[in-house]
């Protein structure tokens, strides 16, 4: 069995937070929408604090122009080589710039968000505290749509 299949099997039956309903935001047409990336790869600039192992509920705001980002997620159980070769495979910021340039999307958000994916099982801090704080920062920047990229 492949390593990825082993991980998918391990994760398939993990307890997850329960959500009884599905919230629904209606975005403007894509050609007018400001788009942000929200990733759980734990990306950060070298001048920002590192993520500190398992259970770090904090997030980093990444500026639109940042490229030399470090992959701060702590797990050893996913391929990291692709990110080192091409950050867009995790953080497709150059693709968004191209889509903004050709008018497919309205614009690229001035700031993007990175959390670390290895969270406590309850995820309550992200749900109630740091998640809403990050969302408020994106809203303040006029973000309409977020693409969420996990690792």
């Amino acid at each position: 069995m492949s390593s990825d299949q082993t991980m998918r099997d391990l994760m398939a039956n993990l307890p997850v937070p329960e959500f009884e309903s599905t919230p629904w935001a209606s975005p403007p047409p894509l050609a007018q929408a400001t788009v942000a990336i929200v990733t759980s790869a734990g990306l950060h600039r070298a001048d920002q604090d590192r993520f500190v192992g398992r259970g770090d509920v904090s997030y980093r705001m990444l500026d639109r122009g940042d490229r030399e980002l470090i992959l701060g997620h702590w797990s050893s159980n996913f391929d990291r080589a692709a990110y080192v070769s091409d950050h867009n495979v995790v953080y497709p910021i150059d693709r968004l710039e191209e889509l903004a340039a050709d008018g497919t999307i309205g614009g690229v958000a001035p700031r993007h968000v990175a959390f670390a994916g290895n969270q406590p099982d309850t995820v309550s801090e992200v749900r109630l505290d740091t998640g809403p704080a990050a969302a408020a920062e994106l809203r303040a920047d006029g973000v309409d749509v977020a693409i969420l990229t996990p690792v």
Partner: protein
Amino acid sequence: MCVLAHVLEEAGIATVVLASMRPVAERMNVPRVLYCEFPLGRPLGMPDNAAFQHEVLSAAFDLLEAPEGPVLVDYPEIVEAFETPLACALPPRYDPDIAPSVDEAQGLRAAYDRAVARRGTTEVGRSISADGVPGALTDLERVIAGEHWKEVYGPRLDTLAISHDLRSYYQEAALELAEGPAPGARQVEAWFFEETEAGKTLAVARDALKDQDAPDGIIFYMVPVGR
């Protein structure tokens, strides 16, 4: 990611999750999910392939047209990992008086330095810098030789961060040395653990630490699941 989708939608931001774990997404009532069966760590599927990445993004943006949710769509193309070791030459034995892993790591330093210069950053640095790689391998060799980890590391065992730094040092050197397109998922991992002295040392040291009853939470992630 699925929790953040809920949080962002409640704040008025429309989301699409490029999910990598379908059963998790299924159970969480996430507004819009594009399930992408790609290797873990590659949510856009393929590095150095802008066309493929654009197709994935286009499929994700299509979900914004749905009038109501939850919406869960499978991306039609599957990308599988390729777990045969990367073809990457290792330096010849140079100094017979030091451990093979230390000798090997020193031989890769020039390639690592070139990689950092080209990319402008490095994943090494959680616990040690590149200068600390030979010493970190020497410490692992001491554990393998029978010294107790508390004598080697003191009260705070940091081998999880050290193993990340060692793997990253080798990974960046290997990507610099290997020819051709970006390797398939886990090819660099396979190369490191199956072909390099450092990878073998890390795996054996993990077993030695386990035998010394080192804290499980630290040693579990030193080596990927299944190795």
